[in-house]
């Protein structure tokens, strides 16, 4: 567990280093990523899995149910497969039809539940689910790869490995809604269940079971097409397939809207790194584990493709750095992990450094896996402002924690170039150009740097010995930022230390940080605000968890 105010040691990286967008945008998945946490739990607790319903016709249309049966409770992915004309297939949130739609059901659904869900789940945002559902999601096929796999299997042949590697998934989800969206169960209603307390565990389960569905559907269609000639997908090819995910700007404001949650994710990871750096010696087994993780990361980087210029440069950095790590002798002497880390800070790019974080954590499960239980947040408890603090004390804390934001001129066009807003179109969050577009009057409170500078200027005009309460009564317009400043006192990693309105800000950096915490391993930006990833690639399937014992570290 992280102590409430864990003393920051020389092994801890400070927020000033960690919370920069350029570094967050170089994040890699670690063993504390949410999908790894979920798989470990299911492995440890001996969860069982089955598929009690498979009502899919010869056109690939129908419904199916995948169950995950845990020691205390059962969860079911209810999947609906549709016949989607090509011209309606869009990953944008404004789409209204998909190849497949899903809900994660709390328990085992009856036929009546399935009928109720069938009337709503295919409609997604336009339907309603109930507190019996924990998530609502949809996915589109990777049209070319899906067809290739079906055709080959129908002919009795395996698909081309290069084709599979180039895409990495048969379907990609375009939204996974949880936490009370569209009538689903509130997080508060399920947060006391150990298996769902961690962040996004219901969503991860839904996506993982979706992965099985995508392969079952392809094999089903191959069997329809090829009859007795058809074969099933080979084990190694199955394993390399994940579930794609297409993520746009909509996900970016989440990390700014949930500062205490962001803090707890970051703090758990940073505490883990500090624990590894703080080991006086390196066990031989841990060094072996590090070396194998490095080999896996090198393979992952080799198979990682992108056409985006920013990502191409980062990939070159990453591959170069992994090669450097490969030849770098493991340090002798005391605190060898720390020595390795300090060397990396001088020798490697941000991509390489953040990859190394994951590599160093990988062989230290016994030391750090418990931190996975510290990544949720009680946001209600952190909400209320303390008005009794003096302006002087409040400003002292502000100056300590927000030095990065003060002293900038936010009247400069480049510093205030953007504004975040919600579009009327399907309520999609978007990013506008303040000086070219209308709508800045409706901007979302995302510009934390400028807001804190404004707040500090206003506080300077107020008597220093007075309590904050009087200031906020007179100036409710600063209440939003004052709350964040106060939350950051106990949550040092709560704020991104960059100007999120700046002309050169890259939203994909925010997206990558969040997706790495989910456990994504390939990041393929399609623009500066849109990224493709794959989840669960090279991870076990439900049937593997039941039969294998040692692959989920």
């Amino acid at each position, binding site marked *: 567990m992280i102590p409430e105010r864990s003393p920051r040691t020389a092994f801890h990286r400070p927020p000033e280093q960690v919370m920069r967008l350029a570094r967050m945008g170089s994040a890699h998945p670690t063993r504390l990523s949410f999908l790894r946490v979920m798989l470990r739990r299911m492995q440890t607790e001996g969860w069982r899995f089955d598929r009690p319903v498979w009502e899919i016709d010869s056109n690939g249309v129908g419904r199916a149910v995948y169950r995950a049966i845990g020691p205390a409770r059962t969860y079911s992915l209810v999947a609906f497969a549709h016949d989607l004309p*090509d011209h309606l297939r*869009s*990953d*944008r949130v404004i789409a209204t039809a998909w190849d497949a739609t899903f809900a994660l059901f709390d328990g085992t659904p009856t036929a009546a539940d399935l009928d109720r869900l069938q009337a709503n789940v295919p409609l997604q945002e336009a339907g309603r689910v109930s*507190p019996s559902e924990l998530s609502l999601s949809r996915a*589109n096929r*990777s*049209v*070319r*790869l899906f067809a290739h796999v079906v055709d080959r299997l129908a002919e009795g042949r395996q698909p081309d490995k290069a084709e599979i590697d180039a*895409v990495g998934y048969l379907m990609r989800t375009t939204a996974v809604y949880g*936490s*009370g*969206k569209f*009538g*689903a*169960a*509130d*997080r*508060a*209603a399920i947060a006391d269940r150990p298996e769902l307390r961690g962040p996004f565990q219901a969503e991860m389960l839904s996506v993982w079971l979706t992965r099985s569905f995508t392969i079952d559907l392809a094999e089903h269609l191959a069997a329809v097409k090829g009859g007795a000639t058809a074969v099933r997908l080979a084990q190694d090819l199955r394993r390399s397939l994940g579930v794609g995910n*297409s993520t*746009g*700007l909509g996900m970016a404001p989440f990390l700014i809207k949930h500062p205490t949650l962001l803090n707890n994710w970051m703090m758990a990871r940073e505490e883990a790194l500090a624990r590894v750096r703080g080991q006086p010696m390196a066990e031989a087994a841990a060094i072996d584990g590090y070396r194998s993780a490095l080999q896996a990361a090198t393979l992952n980087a080799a198979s990682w493709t992108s056409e985006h210029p920013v990502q191409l440069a980062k990939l070159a950095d990453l591959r170069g750095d992994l090669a450097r790590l490969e030849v770098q002798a493991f340090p002798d002497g005391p605190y060898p992990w720390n020595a390795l880390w300090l060397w990396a800070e001088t020798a490697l790019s941000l991509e390489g450094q953040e990859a190394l974080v994951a590599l160093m954590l990988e062989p230290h499960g016994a030391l750090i896996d418990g931190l996975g239980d510290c990544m949720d947040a009680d946001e209600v408890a952190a*909400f*209320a*402002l303390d*008005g*009794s603090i003096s302006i002087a004390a409040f400003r002292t804390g502000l100056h300590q924690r927000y030095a990065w934001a003060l002293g900038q001129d936010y009247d400069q066009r480049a510093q205030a170039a953007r504004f975040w*807003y*919600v*579009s*009327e*179109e399907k*309520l*999609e969050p*978007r*990013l*506008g*150009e303040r000086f*070219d*577009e*209308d*709508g800045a009057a*409706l901007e979302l409170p995302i510009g934390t740097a400028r807001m804190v500078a404004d707040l500090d200027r206003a506080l300077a005009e107020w008597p220093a010995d007075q*309590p*904050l*309460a009087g200031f*906020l*009564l007179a100036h*409710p*317009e600063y*209440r*939003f930022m*004052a*709350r964040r400043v106060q939350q950051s006192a106990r949550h040092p990693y709560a704020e991104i230390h960059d100007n999120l309105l700046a002309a050169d800000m890259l939203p994909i950096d925010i997206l990558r940080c969040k997706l790495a915490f989910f456990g994504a391993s390939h990041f393929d930006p*399609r*623009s500066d*605000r*849109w990224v493709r990833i794959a989840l669960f690639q090279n991870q076990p399937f439900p049937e593997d968890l039941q039969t294998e014992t040692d692959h989920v570290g």
Partner: protein
Amino acid sequence: MLDEVVLSLSEVEALALKAARGAGYSWGLAEEAAFATRWLCEQGLDGLRVLADHLDGLLTSGQAPLPPQMHALQWRAADTTPLCPIMTGAAINDHFGLPEGPRQGGLTIGPVAFPALLLPFVAIAAAREKVAAVLGWARCKVIVADGALLALEGNAACNVAQSINLTVIARATPAPRPFAGLPTKPDTGHLLAGLAHRTYVPATDQSRRGAGAAGTDNQ
């Protein structure tokens, strides 16, 4: 939002936040309004109805939300216009442990619009200070303790309370109250959705261009 629908608490909170913002509250106060609305719904009261009526009243009257003026043991309005319950509630939270707050001999507050919206603020501030609190107005008496509703006598729904008595009592623990879900009436939902809509920016070709992927979706 035309049929009666049971919203989840996170939907209640999101709708209340946008509606309060759409009605003109600053983001920080809109967050307080969302917190208060969710709290009322969690306690089994129709928070969305109260918020909708309050916001509707503000817009109909054209009055800006009014913060309290603080005097010894009394918080008053500048004139006969009722105080804003969101601003007053936030001020109760902020001042609870300060000399202006209710801990030294209680407070008389009024007039206040839609006083039920004060309850959440008193409840969490009292819990933080490890006390409970009693609020009384007209024919209504409410006890909040441990961050929740402990007792409610009479009807908390009321457009204006001329005078509210707020006193601090010893801490108590209410029985846990499982959230059952409240159907939201179509007119409430419609009104709040209309206000929420004011926070959205109309789509333009330029905004659409910046929203999606640069390449094609299919591969």
